[in-house]
């Protein structure tokens, strides 16, 4: 009995010694707002995780928690990850911002990175993609393909991130169709396929013939397909859901940012930074454009994309007017990142008001 216990203790000691001798892998945790699935926002983060996980090999050990609701419960999940020894935690949805900041105060030695937020702390950085650049290109396609001159947009919540995308989509559409108008419906959820679908149907009832969404499911694409209309997807290539309807998708690619952040932690050079990458850094792109779209339009989209990448064009460059036709960005100016982060007005051509 005593001998057995002694042997166990020795074995345990040996294990601890070995563990200390070999450099322990950096434990990296990811918190996802919805199930991973095969398309959508979380799916693209998971793609990023898989890529960096392969690249870094033994140096890191990654895992994720999916379907974590925003709000109080997410703080518990984030803290649990920190408590169970994760060194670097990526929280991948806007609503995790305050929970991340709170958890970071409790675990000062853990590094946190929050996606799409604006708050930072000494151990919290943030990162996001310039989705509006890809949105702008998708909008160019949408504007060209609308016959009724009405676009429809299904938005999740009226926060700057979504409003920015809506405005970029409109500005893109105006490049190919000066008469274009747009209607917006808010569904107050990131993920309720049936409600997203119903919103899409309502938009089509009101004359919209090209739809877009800033929600997580491909229900809007399905609705357009069923009604013989067009739609552009978001996050990932959603063509499988509407082979006839899907014009293109505005997509994110997260792996470059994940690689840089993880490398910095491994090197010990990590500092709280706010990283915002777009088309130029490969963090955004659009899916292959539908064959119905005329060649000159595709060429124009390619041209604008090249200009944005080269830095010769910005999505939010003047002149930009607001809904009451007041000039908001004068000719030759462009909006700063700080302004983009607080975007709370619609550009000209969008109908309705932003709910306060």
């Amino acid at each position, binding site marked *: 009995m005593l001998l057995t216990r002694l042997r166990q203790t020795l074995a345990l000691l040996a294990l601890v010694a070995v563990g200390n001798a070999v450099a322990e892998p950096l434990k990296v945790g990811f918190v996802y707002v*919805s*199930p*991973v*699935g*095969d*398309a959508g926002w979380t*799916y693209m983060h998971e793609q990023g995780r898989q890529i960096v996980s392969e690249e870094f090999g033994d140096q890191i050990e990654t895992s994720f928690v999916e*379907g974590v609701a925003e709000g109080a419960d997410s703080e518990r999940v984030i803290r649990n990850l920190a408590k169970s020894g994760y060194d670097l935690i990526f929280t991948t949805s806007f609503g995790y911002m305050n929970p991340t900041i709170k958890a970071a105060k409790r675990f000062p030695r853990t590094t946190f990175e929050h996606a799409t937020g604006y708050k930072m702390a000494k151990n919290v950085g943030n990162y996001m993609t310039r989705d509006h650049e890809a949105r702008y290109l998708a909008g160019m396609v949408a504007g060209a393909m609308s016959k009724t001159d009405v676009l*429809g947009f299904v938005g999740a919540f*009226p926060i700057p991130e979504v409003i920015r995308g809506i405005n970029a989509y409109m500005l893109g559409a105006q490049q190919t169709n000066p008469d274009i108008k747009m*209607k*917006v*419906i*808010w*569904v*107050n*959820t990131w*993920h*309720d*396929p*049936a*409600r*997203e*679908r*119903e*919103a899409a*149907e*309502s*938009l089509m*009832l*009101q004359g919209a013939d090209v739809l877009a969404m800033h929600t997580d*499911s*491909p*229900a809007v694409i*399905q609705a357009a397909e*069923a009604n013989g209309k067009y739609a552009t997807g978001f996050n990932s290539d959603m063509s*499988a*859901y509407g082979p006839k309807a899907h014009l293109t998708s505005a997509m994110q690619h997260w792996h470059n940012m994940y690689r840089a952040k993880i490398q910095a932690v491994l090197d010990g050079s990590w500092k709280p930074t706010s990283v915002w990458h777009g088309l130029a850094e490969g963090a955004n792109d659009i899916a292959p454009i539908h064959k119905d779209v005329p060649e000159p339009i595709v060429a124009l989209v390619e041209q604008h994309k090249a200009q944005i990448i080269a830095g010769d064009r910005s999505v939010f460059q003047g002149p930009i007017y607001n809904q009451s036709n007041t000039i908001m960005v004068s000719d030759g100016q462009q909006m700063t990142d700080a302004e983009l982060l607080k975007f709370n007005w619609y550009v000209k051509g969008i*109908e*309705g*008001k*932003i*709910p*306060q």
Partner: protein
Amino acid sequence: MDIAFIDNVLFATVRTATPLLLVALGVMISERSGVLNLGQEGMVLVGAALAFIAAYVTGNMGWGIIAGAFAGMLVSVLFAFIALSLMANQVATGLALTIFGTGLSAFVGADYVGQSIAGLSPISIPLLSSIPFIGKAFFAQDIMVYLSFCLFGGLWWLMRATRLGLIIRSVGENPEAAHALGYPVRKIRYCAVLFGGAMAGLAGAYLSLAYTPMWSEGIAAGRGWIALALVVFASWRANRVLFGAWLFGFASILHLLLQGYGYAISPNLLAMLPYLVTIIVLVIMMQRKQGGSDAPRSLGRPFSPSR
């Protein structure tokens, strides 16, 4: 606002109401027999997942519908055994069932997320579907909507005019008396719960085969819970359940349409609209008709014939 527009709004109303109607009718039967099953959300999810998987694997929507109903029923057997045979607390068992169903559906459906199927297509009934206003809403829907109409008709008649309906109610009102009269109380309750499970499964099948032909985790998005509340406010009556479901469906559509027309009402307020309107209207009806609700008197109380 032209006729085609109203046609389409009513069409969307009926479609939105269908999953609620299916769940709520099942809830009504099981609660009429005295069993409170809060596991609806879980059963809807399991039904939705299995219906999608069956339809995807066999390529046949019919099998999908059957699988959905069957899966819902199978999960409800679990509830029935624990709550009726082992006489556990029905509220706790039902809540556990919802958690179980949510997890189970996510687990079995994991490989099918992102797959797509053709989905049920609408079947227009000639002549009837061209009636202005109501034609499209009632006669140009898919087969599951027609099925829900038939089920409504059948259950309305069952509870109103048949001996079986009376027996189910007596079991829910006073199981001791029903037992003394020689009715197999537990057997009847089992059947009612299983029927409720099948209805919840059907509602799930409607979501994943017709409404949004795909599987994604949590696709029910709380519809099981809404149906449970609907039955209470509808005083356990089939016709009010139908009316409540339509009202809810209409208010849901309305809040989206109002936004499209540019009314700057807070979307949070608008999102409350369906719940508010439905509750207010049904509560008023409840008050006016017979003063107070007529909940089955033994609702949620376990019954043992040996006591």
